[in-house]
């Protein structure tokens, strides 16, 4: 599917989405509550058939936290980037997409571990790399006096 068509389609799926044609992929910023339904429709619709979630990253944008989903269709070859943003830094919760793409289970655990973003309906949301006392190191306001030495 061409980029322009894809932009129209995502806009029709979710009227609140901000869709732009990025440098590489079509990028759609979706409201947190709509993410699961948009993702599900993009996967099940045979015209888009986004069946391969190839990257899921958590990002700290400073004031906001975010999750970025890179999705590709193995049959049709096109890709899309879905993004969600949380205003609430203390208790960010999103819907898990593990039921849509099974690979999300590990990726979401990683994002929870390193950024503290929680995922509703995740089968097994526990810390992955770090012990419970470690905090969320990929956040920009993370402080660790012992291990991080700031050169002046």
């Amino acid at each position, binding site marked *: 599917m061409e980029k322009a068509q894809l932009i129209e389609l995502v806009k029709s799926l979710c009227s609140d989405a901000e869709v732009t044609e990025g440098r590489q992929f079509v990028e759609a910023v979706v409201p947190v509550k709509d993410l699961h339904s948009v993702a599900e429709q993009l996967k099940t619709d045979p015209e888009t058939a986004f069946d391969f979630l190839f*990257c899921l990253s958590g990002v700290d944008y400073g004031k906001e936290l975010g999750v970025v989903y*890179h999705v590709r269709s193995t049959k049709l070859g096109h890709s899309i980037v879905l993004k969600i943003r949380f205003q609430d830094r203390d208790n960010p919760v999103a819907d898990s997409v593990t039921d849509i793409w099974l*690979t999300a*289970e*590990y990726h979401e655990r*990683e994002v929870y571990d390193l950024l503290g973003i929680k995922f509703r309906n995740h089968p097994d949301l526990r810390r992955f790399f*770090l012990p419970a006392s470690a905090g969320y190191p*990929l956040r920009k306001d993370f402080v660790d006096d012992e291990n991080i030495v700031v050169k002046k």
Partner: protein
Amino acid sequence: MEEAVKELIDENQEYVINMGPQHPSTHGVLRLVVSLKGEIVKNVEPHIGYIHRGIEKMCESITYPQIIHLTDRMDYLSAHINNEAVCLAVEKALETDIPDRIKIIRTIMSELTRIQSHQLFWATYGMDLGGLTCFFYGLRDREKILDIFEETCGSRMIVSYNCPGGLMYDIHPNFQNRVKEFIKYFRRTLPEYDQLLTGNVIFRERTMNVGRLSLEDAISYGVTGPSGRASGFSCDVRKHEPYSAYDRVKFNEITFNDGDSYHRYLVRMKEMWESMDIIEQLIDNIPEGPYAVKMKPVIKLPEGEYYQRVETARGELGVYIISDGNKNPYRVKFRSPNFVNLSVLNLISKDFKIADLVTIGGSLDLVIPDIDR
């Protein structure tokens, strides 16, 4: 004594044991908590993070040329390909034109890296299944590639040979001859690998129909690389999104439909032949020219997001860079193939015997530092 045994049995009457973190078959510090009913595996739960170094966090405080040295330490068997991923992302962001000489040398080095990685896979996989001879044969031949690396890059495994804009140094004058010599030698010795292991009855019995992964699961779990292609998932980035000089060489993407341990093994064996074909097409056609494009002393990427994927020996590596215009990246995410491939272990090892867990884990060819990052 009885009390101690009771503690090991959980509420489902399953016996829980720890495999690792120092188990020889995991090739690194991976701990698998395995629930067993008798000898049958009911659940496998990987515990990782023993060598989590926070590479993504470290990247946020260093410059782009410095990041390259960290990527070596992720998948140390695909070190050169990891370097290339970051370099390509930076070059794409700066819209730098890379001369053919650099592209071709990078491709040759990538394929040599792939061969040595598959050789080590073959060596250790044979050893995991009880054939110690494989280990000596595999390492004997791998040594020859490492010698070529040493001569050209100054290092054997952690090569750091790429830099944004090209290569760190020019190739050694002896490089082409040695590579050609190696290809000639390896074309003769690779059939020995098949004679030794591929046709072995014990090996085939232990790997065929063990750990079957369907195509749907492979795509849904995002299993890429040889492990995904054994299930029929056409996921070779070199074919689908050619980078460097892969658009000018002819090679086949090896896929099978069975998706068991034996076919995951077979994909790697056949890929070594393809890699040799690729090298042979390029080795005599290295044009003259500079080995690096002059870049600015301080590399700053324009504000924006960049994604670059490459095919390492284990699957699709993605580098996702968010830049805010500074000399340090704002956020770097590595989509590591091993992390994703590990997620399928529980699914495909269910209801097999515990000895098969070694077979299945070995056939996924996991490199632990790449999982932990």
